[in-house]
């Protein structure tokens, strides 16, 4: 008991000092922002770079004078691919560190875990990854794709003549909310296109699964029944053994194309991509897109990675879609703060609506005035031998997000904006 009180006194003293110093010697005030990405565990393969790219955007903003004359001070925490820990860390960021905004999460299960915290404490989260929709929270801005901005166009492409005219589908995913919901939407979509249930196979594996022998063999067998495509919602480091097995068992993209929704340039880093040429990914951004914004973005990332000695990227810098979405998110928040002239969540939120940013995807990304999602272009790319993607299909322009997918019954009655507290209580 004695020791504990001593510790708390110490902590109190430290926090007084912490509050005291900047105001006493303030050259420049700072504003804290939280970064909540797994830096260890199964999702570290995907999330670590999002932390780094957020730091890069913050450094850029600080170099140009910060936001409203204040330097941004990032607070980085590691929730370690542990979903309940995400909620704890989010609470810590908002209540102890008093951050103005949080950039973070990848898996939907982690987002669902922090959601009650952000709603209870009225925090603000920028979520940078494609997801299954079925959610609009007033405390979250979704800068990744909704199903109609990624999954549905990808499946339409696979069914088209150029995509191979697939008639049978294997829906393969990691066992959690994002793949399950996405596959529910896709199943309904495929049914609406006249694909019967017997031509759809749904397979799930646990997080961190590493033995894909049987699954790849089963895909092969399934593909004997007609032109088959695989829709992969495998997340995290399981993708490496999955693609290795595909290559080893000689399942070629010209026979059975695999389109992935959570595999980008970064996930393929550890894989020999030569046997995988032609497998697909659908995103709103690829590193190989050619336009001035993107070449500047990739160049900046390359020199940042070198300066910060980021493992892997210092020798071979790679950018991907969630990185771009993170980058857009940080800038949109900055612009909104400047518009609102305040860091208060309730004032920043309306200022984010309608915000635009010239994104590396080559289009002007616009935050919808109501539904908290971005208007984004959709690209479909095929893996090349060097691990990059060649773009084989794209939309003419940005597409508005439909977080409430029309392929889930009952969604037609839901409003395309965050529910008010009064509605929620019912």
């Amino acid at each position: 008991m004695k020791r504990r009180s001593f510790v708390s006194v110490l902590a109190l003293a430290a926090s007084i000092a912490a509050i005291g110093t900047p105001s006493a010697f303030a050259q420049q005030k700072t504003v804290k922002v939280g970064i909540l990405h797994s830096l260890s565990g199964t999702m570290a393969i995907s999330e670590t770079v999002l932390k780094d790219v957020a730091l890069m955007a913050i450094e850029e903003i600080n170099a140009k004078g910060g936001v409203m004359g204040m330097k941004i001070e990032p607070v980085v925490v590691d929730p370690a691919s542990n979903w309940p820990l995400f909620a704890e860390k989010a609470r810590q960021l908002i209540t102890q560190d008093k951050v103005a905004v949080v950039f973070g999460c990848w898996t939907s299960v982690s987002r669902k875990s922090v959601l009650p915290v952000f709603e209870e404490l009225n925090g603000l989260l920028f979520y940078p990854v494609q997801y299954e929709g079925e959610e609009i929270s007033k405390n979250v801005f979704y800068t990744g794709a909704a199903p109609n901005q990624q999954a549905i166009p990808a499946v339409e492409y696979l069914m088209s003549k150029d995509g191979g005219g697939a008639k049978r589908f294997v829906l393969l995913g990691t066992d959690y909310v994002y793949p399950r919901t996405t596959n529910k939407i896709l199943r309904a979509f495929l049914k609406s296109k006249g694909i019967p249930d017997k031509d759809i196979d749904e397979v799930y594996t646990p997080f961190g699964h590493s033995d894909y022998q049987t699954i790849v063999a089963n895909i092969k067998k399934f593909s004997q029944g007609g032109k088959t495509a695989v829709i992969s919602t495998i997340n995290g480091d399981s993708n490496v053994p999955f693609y290795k097995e595909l290559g080893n068992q000689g399942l070629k993209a010209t026979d059975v194309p695999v389109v992935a929704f959570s595999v980008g340039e970064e996930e393929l880093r550890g894989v020999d991509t030569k046997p995988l040429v032609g497998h697909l990914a659908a995103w709103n951004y690829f590193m190989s897109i050619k336009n001035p914004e993107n070449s500047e973005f990739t160049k900046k990332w390359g020199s940042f990675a070198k300066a910060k000695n980021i493992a892997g990227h210092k020798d071979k810098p790679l950018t991907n879609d969630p990185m771009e979405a993170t980058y857009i998110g940080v800038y949109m928040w900055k612009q909104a703060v400047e518009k609102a002239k305040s860091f208060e969540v309730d004032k920043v939120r309306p200022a984010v609506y309608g915000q635009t940013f010239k994104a590396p995807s080559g289009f002007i990304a616009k935050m919808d005035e109501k539904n908290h999602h971005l208007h984004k272009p959709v690209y479909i790319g095929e893996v090349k031998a060097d691990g990059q993607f060649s773009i084989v299909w794209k939309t003419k322009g940005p597409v508005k997000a439909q977080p409430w997918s029309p392929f889930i019954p009952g969604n037609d009655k839901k409003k395309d904006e965050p529910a008010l507290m009064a509605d929620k209580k019912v």
Partner: protein
Amino acid sequence: MLLQGKGAAALAALFISASAFALDRSALEKLASDDNDEKIAAIAALVAEGDPKAADVLKSAAEGEIEVDGKKVEIVVNNRVRARIAEALSVLKLLSPDNAERHAAATALTGGADPAMLPLVLKARDAEQDPAVKKLLELATAAMQLRSEDKETRLAAIRALAGSDNKALLVEAASDADEDIKRAAQSTLREMDDRLVWGEWLGLAFAGVSLGSILLLAALGLAITYGLMGVINMAHGELIMIGAYTTYVVQGWFRGSALFDFYLVAAIPAAFVVSAGVGMLLERSVIRWLYGRPLETLLATWGISLVLIQAVRTIFGAQNVQVENPAFMSGGIQVMANVVLPWNRIFIILFAAGVLVAMWALLSKTRLGLYIRGVTQNRSMAACVGVPTARVDTWAFGLGSGIAGLAGCALSQVGNVGPDLGQGYIVDSFLVVVFGGVGQLAGTVYAALVLGFANKLLESWSGAVLAKIAVLVFIIFFIQRRPQGLFALKGRAVEA
């Protein structure tokens, strides 16, 4: 109609080529167009000329670049176009004088090709001398004639395809409007099914043995430290992880050298030595003070496992590191039409067998093995006849740890290498050892294989998630009914 049109274009190109000696420029331009239909027509046109130069153009086109009028043009090649290019290249190779090359090309074409190329393939078939290649080309032409306008041709094609293993070709015909064609296709499909069912079982059996060999490797070390010595070593998984990281480090030394493909030769002993060293250090410093106190051992080794994980995180970073397969371990061997056995798994099975034999020899043929067996069976008697029991404990623990290191080296070839690697295997390892019967090596082998098979069989039937649960539930019930495991030592041999 469209197909016919393309065929006509190909024929037209054939006539033009008779007079022209250079590559058809209009075809090149079409190849550079944005429309994939145009590209495919152009590919057919280029092939129809039969010009060996066409092969070079098509090869560079597959990589996304062609030369028109001396200027390099980038083109987008998607799967559909790439498949056509691959077919075209195979068709061109049918003219090669090399037997092996023609054989490979004909094999590639058995899945069918653009009907525009049929005349060329027919010509090649009629000119073919080698019986094996000729047979393959007959399958190829049959696959291409499946959608012919003429019913007799189609029926003949369907019958000819009975020799093929590619069911996908016939699916469309099996639901054709024409009764005769439908019946013929369905009977051919049944014939194929009978042949392919063996392949399925073989594939499943291989997957079972492969998983079994991985489980065996992970559990063998534990069979010594826990099975023979009775130490509940929760850090066993981390010793595996250390082996995997050692492989990663050794791989780093070999990078860029001509001997890179053989880095495993150095990595295997290195992984053994490093893990054994760490194990012996643990035994000397912590575990030997805790013999006979299982609960304390469990807690202490669990603590050690956390320390080791964090140490690796600090040294190598929290992210996974990449361990590449040597070139000869990539790809696989096609044993049947629907069974490909990946090389890396074949090597691991052989490796596991090798480790098992070496360990058996060590335990039963050497003095150290005799000491280890003596000490585990009756410690005080062994001490009385002059066996240095404390030192034997250290060596035995080192041996178990070293084998865990070997397992890590093998696992780095099939899975991800990260600080948490060991956590995924510790439960499986204990399951195998307990299921097989503590104090028993043969039991461990059988248990690993049984669990491997059961897992794979259930997985193909109920999915990976349920399979894992089912196996766990089965073992819980099994251990309740038979706590001593599959094979139990009888008599007074085991200490306490």
